[in-house]
């Protein structure tokens, strides 16, 4: 984990070959690379599955936002089993239910609906991050998502 100050972890589904898993991962990239790069860190679910010590330490130290691609909720379960705290868990199917106009399709490459759904989820995650972390000194204004 790079940078200083409190971080929120974003842990997306690792389901390969699943459309909603792709939405989860795309949303995680948007948050951690574009919307809240200084406040968030992406943790690969596979590292937790393997018991990677560094990943487990991060999860134990920081609140996590999990993005699950299906009802198995692997991201949420692995964070909990790794000793972490799930500050908020988001289910991609529930996200689609809230944004029915964004029907995701595709796997390796999401269609426009999938990309828009990922963006909507990313903005939801960013708002959660803002609520979780204290504002940095001199940073009184909220982010523009």
């Amino acid at each position: 984990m790079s940078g200083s100050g409190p971080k929120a972890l974003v842990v997306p589904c690792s389901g390969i070959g699943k459309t909603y898993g792709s939405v989860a991962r795309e949303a995680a990239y948007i948050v951690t690379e574009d919307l809240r790069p200084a406040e968030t860190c992406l943790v690969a679910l596979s590292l937790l599955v393997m018991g990677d010590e560094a990943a487990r330490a991060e999860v134990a130290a920081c609140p996590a936002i999990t993005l699950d691609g299906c009802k198995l909720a692997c991201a949420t379960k692995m964070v909990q089993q790794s000793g972490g705290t799930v500050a908020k868990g988001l289910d991609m199917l529930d996200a689609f239910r809230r944004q029915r106009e964004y029907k995701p399709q595709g796997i390796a490459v999401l269609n426009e609906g999938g990309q828009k759904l990922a963006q909507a989820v990313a903005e939801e995650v960013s708002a959660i991050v803002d609520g979780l972390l204290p504002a940095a000194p001199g940073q009184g204004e909220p982010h523009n998502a």
Partner: protein
Amino acid sequence: MPEFLSTVVDKFTFKVALDRYYTAEGVWALAEGHRVRIGLADYLQQRSGDVAFAEVKPEGTTLKAGEEVGALETIKVNISLASPVTGTVVEVNPALADSPEAINQDPYGAGWLAVLEAAHWEADRAQLLTAEAYFDKMKSQAEEEARKT
């Protein structure tokens, strides 16, 4: 609690409730006096994937057997559901509006779709499959699907 026939195909277990009748497509019909409760068979819900939206014709709608009684939008497909009976919709499962996943979680119980006042139940029943007949058909379909993948 109904009894079930079950089979394992590939890594999936499919159940068929013994106390009701089925269309070949996998919609079940359970007689309750003059009324018939309908829903999705386990194989159909598993094959279709997680249900995102379930829409059922409103109460008061009169249908003939084979006409669309509802539609599902799942993570994989949009499917139209044909009514197994002729009659009038008298009750729609209210839980489906907020929790359509009930269809996946409990297809033979809490995930029921609607109740119809049947106009010709005996005649309609003669056109439906028994649980045993549907089980054989479903198993063949599932095994065929497994061979393709």
